[in-house]
């Protein structure tokens, strides 16, 4: 982990008062939300891909292993309910935030998830950095890929969730006027959007967050909630700077996560990564060799 290198480097300069100090990046509620997302998303992905690739033997074996369609169908629906719950909780969170702060706080500025002009320039700068034409950009609290992750889930939950509801309750939706063939449309949307979500999360998100060399093999910040200040300083210089300038950093300092929590977080995190990677390998295998 990069923080180890950085912290050691910093420890050499004895003047650093933030040595071994942790900055709380995620509030407990957000960590809980992500926990729900991980659990529900993995179960939905596993059980959903079983149907999507029902003609592939590995998925059929997986289905049998889990107890057949009745079981996976049940798991899928439970996953859907969890998804709707966290989606609702998050919407509630947003509304509360808006009420407590302001629309301006929610939609603009360093803490907002909304895309802005800086994301574009930061993307250009990142490209330059990738090709060695410039330094690593001074990323802030939310990088543009993190914002994309956020909206991908937001959009995904809405689209997959709604199409999923149609597939879950086709009789009701057709009763209120949706034509029968729209169930077929909903199937395609649900299925392909899910493939997009699964594919994106288990490759792009996994790399961007966990597998990129400076984080490899895992970043457990989302589970523990906190990250070493050194890491913050390296990873998100602009945020660090802002926090230092405003003096807010001291308010956000927390003790290091307990070894137990770290252990739990790592076990959980690695499990999730393992499951996700397994699925993506099975999908790639299916799509390359078997899927028509």
């Amino acid at each position: 982990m990069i923080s180890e290198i950085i912290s050691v480097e910093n420890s050499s300069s004895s003047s650093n008062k933030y040595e071994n100090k942790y900055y709380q990046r995620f509030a407990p509620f957000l960590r809980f939300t992500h926990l729900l997302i991980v659990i529900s998303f993995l179960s939905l992905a596993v059980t959903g891909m079983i149907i999507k690739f029902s003609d592939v033997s590995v998925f059929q074996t997986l289905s049998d292993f889990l107890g057949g369609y009745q079981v996976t169908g049940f798991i899928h629906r439970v996953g859907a309910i969890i998804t709707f719950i966290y989606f609702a909780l998050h919407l509630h969170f947003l509304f509360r935030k808006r009420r407590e702060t302001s629309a301006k706080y929610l939609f603009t500025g360093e803490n907002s998830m909304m895309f802005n002009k800086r994301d574009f320039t930061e993307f250009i700068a990142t490209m330059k950095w990738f090709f060695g034409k410039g330094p690593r950009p001074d990323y802030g609290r939310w990088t543009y890929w993190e914002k994309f992750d956020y909206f991908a889930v937001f959009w995904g939950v809405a689209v997959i969730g709604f199409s999923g509801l149609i597939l879950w309750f086709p009789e009701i939706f057709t009763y209120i006027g949706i034509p029968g063939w729209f169930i077929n449309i909903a199937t395609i949307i649900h299925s392909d959007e899910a493939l997009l979500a699964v594919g994106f999360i288990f490759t792009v998100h996994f790399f961007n967050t966990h597998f990129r060399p400076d984080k490899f093999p895992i970043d457990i910040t989302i589970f523990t909630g906190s990250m070493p200040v050194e890491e913050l300083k390296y990873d998100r210089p602009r945020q660090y700077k802002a926090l230092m300038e405003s003096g807010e950093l001291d308010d956000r300092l927390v003790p290091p996560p307990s070894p137990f929590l770290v252990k739990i977080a790592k076990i959980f995190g690695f499990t999730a990564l393992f499951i996700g990677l397994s699925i993506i390998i099975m999908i790639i295998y299916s799509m390359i060799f078997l899927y028509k």
Partner: protein
Amino acid sequence: MKTFLIFLLFLNTFLFSQSSSVCFDCHNDKELTLSRNSNDISLFVDESKYHSSVHADLDCIDCHADFDPENIPHKEGVNIAKVNCSDCHDTEEFAESFHAEKQIQCFDCHSKHQIQTASVIKKNQVDLCITCHKQSSVKTYTQSVHFEKLQEGNESLSCVGCHGGSAHKIAEANVTEEVLHNICGNCHEQTVHNYEKSLHGIALAKGKYLAPNCITCHNQHNILSSKNTKSKTYKMNVPQLCGNCHKDGTDVSEMKNIDQKHILENYSESIHGDGLFKRGLIVTAVCNDCHASHNILPHQDPNSSINRNNIAATCSKCHAQIESVHVKVIEGELWEKEPHKIPACIDCHQPHSVRRVIYDEKYTDNYCMTCHIDENLHMEKNDKRISLFVDYKSFKNSAHQENSCIKCHTNINVANKPVCLNSGPVDCSSCHAQEVNDYVQSYHGKLHAENNDVAPYCTDCHSKHETKLKSDPESMTFRKNIPELCANCHREGEKAAERYTGDQHHIVESYNESIHGLGLIKSGLTVTAVCVDCHTSHLELPASDTLSAVNPKNIPTTCSKCHYGIYEKFQSSVHSPNVTKTDKKLPTCYDCHKSHSIERVERGDFRQGIIDQCGTCHEEVTRTYFETFHGKVSRLGEVGAAKCYDCHGSHNILPPDNPNSTLSRTNVVETCRNCHPNSNHKFVGYLSHATHHDQDKYPYLFYTFWAMTFLLVGTFTFFGLHTLFWFPRALKEKRRLKKEHEKHN
């Protein structure tokens, strides 16, 4: 006027009788004679009779030409010219006749001066002929049936009718056989034709002197009706007639090699002869009832009335109700239809000595058992030791307990010692004709006919002497025991399974696990289907044979024996050949239900398997079925998901545009409701065989799919590259930091 007519008549008489009257002056004298060679020859001509003859209008000199009327005698020393009838009459025919040859003169029949009209002569012709032909044999003609018929007006039956056809064409009486046949054949054409083909006729044609001709039996002139008790051919007299040649001691019996001996004697003692001679029954059978009257043929001839194949028909002319008498023996019609399958009448009822049935009296079971009680009794055949021991006790417990040994072992021969020597295997068809007939046509039977060792014979399934009824639980052919019986050969590894090359394997195991087998074994149902219910008991044939009960064409009928309700539905379904006329193969019962491993349809294996089954023909819809929810879930082993027949119906399957189809506009909502209780008319618009690959058929799906694909490809391309570029940079960055860190240390 009246006076004038009388005058004319008078004048006429006077004018024409002028010269004749001169002749009659002398010749009307009965005393007028001429003495020649010391014989007195009468020269008397009865004038009155002459005048009533057909020549009355002629003068004497019209016939008696060339003489001197003035002198008496008219031509001294010279005979006056003979009257030449041919001056006026065409006598060419007569000149060639037998009468002419024998110097018979016209006047011998027609008289000299009393010539009658043809009709009068015809009327009296028999008397006329008899005047010369005085033999009694000829005279008996007047008692013959021909004479009777002549009297009734049938002129062709007169003397000349047979002897030449015309009075002037009388032919020689001592004619050849050929001519004789022609003569009789003029009227009795068919009879003579039959005769000529007969044993007698052929012998005659070869010139065998012993051969009888028409006359031998029917006389020359005294031909009598067979109804006439005096006739030789009267029923009572037939044995005598035939016996003339065919009794012992005659030339025929000694010179001809006839199988049957003591024919007439045997006949006399037979039930037929007994009836005739002792009881005077003319309804009994005499020689010609069996051998035919004219068409007598040797029994080897297939057309013979006593040929083995025809004898039943011959006997049943009298014994019409023969089946009811032989009810235990045979199904009636087979006597005549397939006589080779069954014993002929004569097998039991010896010809000529017909009395009662031969068995029981002499060859009793006790007689047989004197030898066959020995457990070591055996014979050698093809180096195989075949036991001839009969467990009489168990035989008496068998289904055949009522029968005596000889009823089945018919092939005994009194000439052999013992009588049963080489009597061969029992032909069960004697009693079980239909079954054996089926067997012979069956594959088992065909193999057996080829002397194939593996082929089962009747006794292999039914045993020899211990045969039990199929209703007997101890019988090998009791329904419960049949699968095991068939398994003896058809179980994997056994002889029938070894030579079988088809695609049905582990038949016995499959059957035992099938719904039919479980019904039998687990539920103990004897009404469940066992082997013979589908394959028939005796007419087993390979499914490829169009006569086979399990041929695809016949299998619906076979299954309908039990599943009739299903059959009715199936017959009106789109899969029935009655409905769909096509060259392609239509599915039949066992395509879906399998032949031996037939399953309960509720079972998962069946429900899953049916998709592949339908898919063998309906490839496209099956493929697209698997692209939609029902198919995908089914593929994951979900038994409950809708299978083909859940929507399309199973046996009553019809095209969706048929109003009676389960998927017709009126029925589809209800059909979906089986699984989706809230089904509605928009819900049923779900495309259960949709594919997003068909742009024309499903454009919405097609474009949705490609829009989604575009989105996926776009996103993955963008972030794929993003990651790809990031990775080496991040790696370098990490190395740099590490280096700096190490340097620092």
